[in-house]
């Protein structure tokens, strides 16, 4: 059981109901998640060909629910082709004890048994026009099958997208739904991940953001980004940071920068904002981003920010 993650979250999750269980969420302004095929070159933007998301189903949700995936196959207009589409992506749904609480499940590297818990459902997708720009629903799932975590105030399920083979990029997104045929949000549901693989918009005017939660043990954070490709700026906003610039990575490499966390930022969400390059248009930019605390423990990104979007609160002084 991890010692650091998700402390205090329970208090914050019990706020006003949230309905946006898309991942990425609308407020993140990130169009899609991405996972490349297992034979891809990491220079396309995916460092490990895995995407691990967790979803939290609140105890109030007792009816079955569905995990829906938009455009799960790798083919068609949306996905990123390298030569011809040849990629297979496996989506796996895990539940039960250890699905989240097993420490290895929360680490960034994919070397251990991060597929903890028990497999509830899985399906592999290759290029299939049937799924192009369409939703596929996993489920129905009994919420009680998830791993109940008191601190998270809900039953946790794990969704893994794994690029099995091929070298194309699978571009997709998730939705937590009470319906298998349409997106009907679960009140109080949420997605979170410790390593965010996503596709940026091609629109140079777009500003995107993701929301890591900083617990009360954090005194500094290490923000790492992979394959940013000179696509503008990455900045940090919080109640105490009004847009600190992060170092940005180039082609096929990681860049890490550490930032102190002040008292006001503990137990709050910070915002990592992506502003596209205005002078040069970067298309199909795939990025991976992690945030770790001073111990190297990954902090969770919630698609619905815990406690809301942070608003910078200046400390005005006179001299």
């Amino acid at each position, binding site marked *: 059981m991890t010692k650091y993650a998700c402390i205090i979250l329970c208090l914050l999750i019990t706020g006003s109901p949230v309905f946006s269980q898309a991942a990425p969420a609308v407020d993140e302004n990130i169009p899609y998640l991405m996972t490349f095929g297992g034979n891809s070159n990491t220079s396309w933007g995916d460092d490990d060909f895995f995407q691990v998301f967790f979803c939290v189903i609140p105890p109030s949700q007792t009816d079955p629910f569905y995990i829906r995936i938009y455009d799960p196959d790798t083919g068609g207009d949306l996905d990123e082709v390298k030569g011809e589409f040849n990629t297979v992506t496996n989506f796996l749904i895990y539940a039960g004890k250890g699905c989240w609480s097993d420490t290895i499940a929360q680490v960034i590297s994919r070397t251990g048994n991060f597929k903890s818990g028990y497999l509830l459902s899985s399906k592999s997708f290759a290029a299939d026009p049937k799924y192009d720009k369409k939703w596929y629903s996993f489920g129905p799932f009994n919420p009680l099958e998830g791993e109940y975590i008191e601190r998270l105030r809900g039953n946790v399920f794990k969704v893994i997208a794994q690029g099995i083979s091929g070298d194309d990029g699978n571009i997709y997104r998730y939705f937590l739904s009470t319906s298998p045929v349409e997106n009907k949000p679960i009140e109080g549901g949420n997605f979170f991940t410790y390593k965010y693989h996503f596709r940026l918009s091609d629109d140079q005017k777009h500003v995107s953001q993701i929301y890591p939660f900083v617990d009360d043990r954090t005194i500094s954070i290490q923000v790492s980004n992979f394959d940013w490709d000179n696509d503008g700026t990455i*900045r940090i906003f919080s109640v105490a940071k009004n847009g600190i610039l992060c170092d940005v990575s180039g082609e096929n490499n990681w860049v890490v920068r550490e930032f102190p966390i002040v008292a006001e930022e503990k137990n709050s969400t910070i915002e990592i904002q992506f502003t596209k390059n205005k002078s040069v248009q970067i298309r199909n930019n795939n990025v991976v981003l992690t945030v770790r605390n001073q111990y190297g423990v990954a902090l969770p990104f919630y698609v619905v920010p815990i406690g809301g979007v942070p608003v910078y609160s200046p400390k005005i002084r006179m001299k």
Partner: protein
Amino acid sequence: MIKYSYLILLAILFSKTELNAQSQRYIVQPTAFSSRINDEFSPVFYKGGIVFCSNQSNKSLISYKDEKNRLFKIFYVAKKGTNGWAYPKIFSEEITTGFNDGPVTFDENEKIMYYSRNNSTRNILGNISDTTNKLGLYSAEFTDGIWTNIKPFTYNNPLYTLCTPSVTPDGERIYFSSDMPGGSGGMDLYYCERQNNEWGPPVNLGPVINTSKNESFPFACRYGKLFFASDGHEGFGGKDLFYSWEINGEWMVPVALDSAINSTADDFGIVTDSTFENGYFSTNRRKTDDIYSFSSAPVEFVNCDTIKENNYCFTLYDEQHRLIDTVPVIYKWDFGNGVIRTGTEVRHCFPGPGDYLVKLNIVDELTGKTITEQVEYNVKLENIEQPDIYSSNIGIVDKSIRFDGITSNLNGFRIKDYLWNFGEGFKPGGPSMNTTFKKKGEYMVQLGLLAEEDSLGTIPKTCVMKKIRVYNSYQELALKGETGKDELNVKTDALASQDKTIQIRIYFMDDLSEKQKAKIEETLKEFKKAAVKFDKNGIKPASYPFLNKIATILKENPDIRLELAVIGSEDVLSEGPMAISAIWAQELGFYLKNKEIDTDSFHCKGFGLSYPFFKPFVPDNATIDGEMELIFIKN
């Protein structure tokens, strides 16, 4: 909306003014010529003696009809020796009537007297208790050894009383008491001003002075103090003596005189020397009206502080922003009245003490989105609690310098007496004083303040001091350069522009060496007839080059000091607590301070229109709004 509240108490930045106490202020005793049988009151100084009113027997041919209502006459008593008195005698047979005469007041030369008496004196056998025979004011001239040419005052009226006159030392104003219609009730104090050798219409002193009861027996002292008696203001009981003074047409709240002078009986009819150290007053504390003398006990002040300057100019910043990297965000600070400053650190001069609301918006420069919207920041500015001497820091030998103590700010310290020390010990004076220094040098002017006696019978006191440098001569520097950037603009329509243009004059005092003068002249050689311009945001950038040169002079020449005096055509901002010249002065001082100049090297002060130093400033709305005197002296 996020709200912050901050209290900037300037006062706490400094140690609180030390208050001391004085145990006894005045010593009083009845005069030898005051009897226990008769009444004597309303003394005035005359030819080394005292003129007063009394109902004592005058040994004249006029006899009293009613012993219970004896008539009052004007008497004179001369000094005899150092402490003695001669026997009182009728002051002037010529002005003595068969009715009530007095009290009296004299002009400074003692050639004209004003006095009150019953208006009708035709029937000396009439009933002296006849209330229809009102008192009026009369004047007489001293010609060929007698008081003659008796004239009634223009505003005498048989329907009401005018009495107890007191003419000011300059003879330009006469105070009196009257129950004329339109007052606050009972007897009120009025004054008339001399206009073309006539007295102008009576002016009621207003509700600060006059109450629904009786105010009378005014005495106009030198330095603007007006003493009077009242049974309407809160005092010790009966009639009490108070004083007040007029500043810019406003009367200050009356101050009751010392408990040694005032008593539970009636105390009235006072006369003092110019410093309120010695004098006489009237009282019936021994049942009959008597004249008492008073003299002040010596007052000493120790440990006088130097004056601390109030500061209303600050740099505002976001502490959190300072701790992190420079990021592309725009800080917009809204100071109200359309003043918006941009920057992560902004400098702003508030227009004096008060409560202000600053609103901050932070905009992301990259996205144009607002990061933080309308954070409100409350600023409360208070003046330093201290006695204050408001004056120029420099002077010229034999040229009068004005010193003001009225700007003193002492909460809970109700100032009763101003005592000034211009090098010859503390002497009582008024809130404002003029003095001249006879020799070149540095003088430490001190102001001591005494408060009203407290419940323990002690008199709180405090003092402050200020260094004045006095010079024999000065010379004005004529700028001869070519640069027209800061040149005076002739404003064709003053209303068309909110800009304010301050003309600059540069002076060298006589302690500057030729080398120092040459350095200043060399640094400013490119300028001609310079001016500094202001708008609602403060100093206009066009004026920076000239001010930067001034900063350069001070920075590179620590042996040179600048005294910067601003004289403004608009004395007071309609919406602000400070004179506009003071606001301009603090803007200039703040500008120089931010050029990292040692604050001991310069001093900026605004003087309104009241303190022309070298040349009187005549407001001319078509061209300039004020004048700035840059006075360079040796540091």
